[in-house]
């Protein structure tokens, strides 16, 4: 035989199966592009030099892993779909006298062509679109100075390696498919789906229990910490439940309907029920995939968008004052520090807003009723216990408090005022070591901080009689790595253009640290960069993965429509011949398709509804507590997604109906 025979045959096959292979190749190209883009952005050198890029890089790394796993699963799924549809054709070759090893050779060349086309186009596409997405990322994280973006040769190599491995694996599974089947099986391959599906009560039960457990966890989570820990457990349960219910639950239910003769033998139900059984059998896995992918798209998009939009509100929680400078009261010349700050302000012409300065002592303690301990009781040191008891304590002398508030309160040696950032302090007294203090007043406001919903531990500000009391308590409670003496703080707000403030912040930090390296400076503007990086990175990844999952959904839907179009057209004709109305047939068929299509979307929306409480709790861990905002983001996400989904449905339904007529 001509040595070009097999490659030629392979090319002909790909062309002949174009309506399924072109979407498959597009998927491959899309996955390769996505993978390479992530890898190349992750390894961009310029990114390393940005402050706070570690978090961003970690997020991007997560993205690479997710895309990799996704590519493996998804390409396997589409490949198995393709080879199933082609079994008849392969059986025909075998009957026409091609041996199995020859068929394998044809399959080999097909894979080679698919690989060459996908890898070359995917990598070129990745190089082109990578730059664009990189600029988008920089924009999202508010990074202004331009960074260069080069072709990443390592990235090219890694991507090529990963996808060569995936393609080889699909090829091996195809070989196995051919090897284990005889020609008759291959010929009938397309018809295996027509068997009456088996359903199992056990699997259905497992599905119900898993889903119930997942939902139960989601609803019963109370603290952000639990939410973070249990979210993935709940996700796993829900995924198991979804697959089990789509695969077995749906059919068990339909079969139950079928057993009810009075119901089943009604002209409307008769065709719907048996049609649905048949469809669910063929599509259960695909539909469950769509349902889970859709849920993932919705959850990722709504959380990342909420975080990104909500961060403006969140940052004040972290930083009540724009700038706060703290140093050990005894060894720091605050007049000098203040002079440096003023000098830097003048240089850039920065105006400042309010300003406060005061003495303080700061330490961490564990609350047990009214007792505050240095360490946790050993046998209770579980994570949840820890986060319930850990308390941030700040001591402030009364005269500083009176000065800042213009008040005129007085305290005895063993008396205190308390301000709790979260819920009010519930005890009457407060005990450090052997000393008990009486709370004389719960303050409603304090100049250094403000009330907010607290989710992990407590934050207390205690106003004590004088420096001496403060010193006593501090020496009792401080840990080894805390500063030796009490502190002095200078806090102020800034006004002006964000870019100038950024520059000022950096200059000031450098100048102050140069004069005294032990000083601690916290700055909203520097922190903002980090927040932008963090949440911006999340948003970028969310949108990126969201689009990828969306593409997968579209493709699964398309394949479904194609594979059903052919079979349904035959059924359509037969039903007319035995006396069913044309319009009636149309109605039943479109009703079935609608059900099959919108079942996963409905499932996804229910999943999201149950996930909502956990999501809000999880976001609370990032200090996003604006529930109306999260709700709005989720709602908009669901509506937009439903519209896109419907659009895809209408488009593919058109090609489906074309097949039927």
């Amino acid at each position, binding site marked *: 035989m001509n040595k070009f025979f097999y490659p030629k045959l392979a090319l002909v096959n790909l062309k002949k199966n174009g309506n399924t292979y072109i979407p498959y190749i597009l998927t491959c190209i899309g996955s390769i592009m996505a993978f390479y883009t992530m890898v190349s952005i992750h390894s961009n050198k310029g990114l390393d030099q940005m402050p706070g890029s570690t978090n961003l890089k970690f997020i991007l790394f997560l993205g690479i892993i997710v895309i990799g796993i996704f590519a493996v699963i998804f390409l396997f799924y589409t490949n198995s779909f393709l080879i199933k549809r082609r079994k008849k054709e392969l059986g025909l070759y075998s009957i026409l006298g091609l041996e199995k090893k020859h068929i394998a050779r044809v399959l080999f060349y097909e894979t080679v062509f698919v690989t060459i086309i996908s890898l070359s186009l995917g990598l070129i596409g990745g190089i082109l679109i990578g730059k664009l997405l990189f600029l988008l990322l920089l924009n999202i994280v508010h990074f202004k100075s331009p960074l260069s973006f080069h072709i990443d040769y390592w990235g090219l190599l890694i991507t090529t390696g990963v996808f060569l491995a995936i393609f080889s694996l699909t090829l091996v599974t195809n070989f196995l498919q051919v090897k284990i089947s005889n020609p008759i099986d291959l010929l009938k391959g397309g*018809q295996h789906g*027509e*068997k*009456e599906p088996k359903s199992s009560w056990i699997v259905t039960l497992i599905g119900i229990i898993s889903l119930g457990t997942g939902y139960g966890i989601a609803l019963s989570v109370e603290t952000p910490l639990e939410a973070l820990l249990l979210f993935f457990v709940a996700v796993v349960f829900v995924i198991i439940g979804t697959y089990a219910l789509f695969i077995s639950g749906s059919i068990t239910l339909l079969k139950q309907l079928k057993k009810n*003769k*009075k119901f089943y*033998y*009604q*002209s409307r139900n*008769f065709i719907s029920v*048996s*049609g649905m*059984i*048949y469809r669910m059998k063929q599509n259960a896995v695909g539909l469950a995939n769509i349902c889970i992918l859709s849920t993932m798209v919705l959850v990722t998009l709504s959380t990342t968008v909420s975080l990104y939009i909500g961060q403006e509100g969140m940052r004040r929680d972290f930083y009540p004052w724009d700038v706060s400078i703290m140093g050990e009261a005894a060894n720091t010349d605050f007049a000098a520090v203040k002079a440096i700050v003023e000098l830097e302000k003048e240089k850039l012409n920065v105006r400042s807003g309010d300003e406060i300065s005061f003495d303080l002592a700061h330490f961490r303690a564990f609350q047990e009723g009214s007792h505050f301990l240095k360490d946790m009781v050993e046998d209770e040191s579980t994570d949840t216990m820890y986060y319930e008891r850990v308390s941030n304590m700040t001591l402030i002398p009364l005269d500083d408090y009176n000065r800042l508030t213009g008040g005129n309160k007085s305290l005895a040696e063993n008396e205190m005022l308390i301000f709790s950032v979260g819920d009010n302090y519930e005890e009457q007294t407060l005990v450090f070591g052997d000393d008990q203090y009486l709370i004389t007043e719960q303050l409603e406001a304090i100049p250094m901080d403000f009330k907010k919903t607290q989710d992990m531990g407590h934050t207390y500000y205690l106003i004590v009689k004088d420096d001496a009391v403060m010193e006593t308590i501090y020496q009792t409670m401080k840990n080894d790595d805390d500063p030796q003496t009490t502190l002095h703080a200078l806090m102020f707000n800034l006004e002006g253009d964000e870019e100038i403030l950024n520059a000022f912040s950096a200059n000031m930090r450098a100048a102050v640290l140069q004069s005294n390296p032990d000083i601690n400076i916290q700055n909203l503007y520097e922190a903002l960069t980090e927040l932008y990086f963090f949440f911006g990175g999340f948003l970028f990844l969310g949108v990126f993965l969201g689009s990828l999952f969306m593409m997968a959904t579209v493709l699964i839907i398309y394949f479904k429509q194609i594979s059903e179009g052919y079979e349904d057209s035959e*059924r359509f*004709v*037969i*039903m*007319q*011949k*035995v*006396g*069913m*109305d*044309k319009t*009636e047939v149309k109605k039943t068929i479109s009703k079935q398709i609608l059900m099959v299509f919108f079942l996963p979307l409905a499932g996804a929306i229910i999943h999201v509804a149950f996930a909502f409480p956990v999501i809000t709790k999880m976001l609370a861990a990032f200090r996003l507590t604006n529930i109306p905002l999260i709700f709005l983001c989720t709602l908009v996400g669901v509506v937009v997604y439903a519209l896109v989904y419907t659009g895809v449905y209408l488009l593919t339904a058109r090609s489906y109906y074309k097949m039927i007529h």
Partner: protein
Amino acid sequence: MRLLEVKNLKKIYTTRFGGNQVQALSNVSFSVEQGEYVAIMGESGSGKTTLLNILASLDKPTSGEVFLDGKNIVTIKDSEISAFRRDNLGFVFQDFNLLDTFSIQDNIFLPLVLAQKSYEEMNSRIKHLSQRLEIQELLQKFPYEVSGGQKQRAAVARALITQPKLVLADEPTGALDSKAAMNLLKIFSTINDLGQTILMVTHSVAAASHANRVLFIKDGEIYNQIYRGSMSNDDMYQKISFTLSVLASGGEELE
């Protein structure tokens, strides 16, 4: 009693772009009496399927009339046509046309379900019928699990279960081996003996030789017909073969 009357039937297919016109039927007239078993023969492309489709109200003639039991089916409204077909006609097709989503039993029930009969009635009807067609054992199976001959018997059961006035069959033995074909023809003869009117298109001389009467179509017209009278199946066979050979040689008018 005259069950079916076909008058001056004409059918011209116009291709989509209006270009070519194919005259499938030029002028067909004949009638079928209640209880008759009529076979229609003719070369490939002579218009047999076209004729059957018009009789089945699946297609409209270009001109002409078809009366079934005195009712003109050409002028039936589109909205009533499915119900009419369901109530009056039974079909048997060459490729069985069973739905793979239904069990054999549900396939047979399909027309009754569409006619909104009660389950009890369907059940009592199928009992009798499945016994006669020897498919009781197969009722719970699915089409892909049974042989071609069995599928065709199921299709016959589906055609008969509505107790139609007329059974139309388009090459019902076409996809069967000779043994299964003989079996089916025997069944047709039996139900005909019980009074069922049958109109069957066939290429098979053996199949046609079971009928009471054979119509020959050539170039879209009835060219000739043979009545069985008192002839045996073998005599019928001879006569049909002869007529076909004359037909094939482009022959001049017979008789």
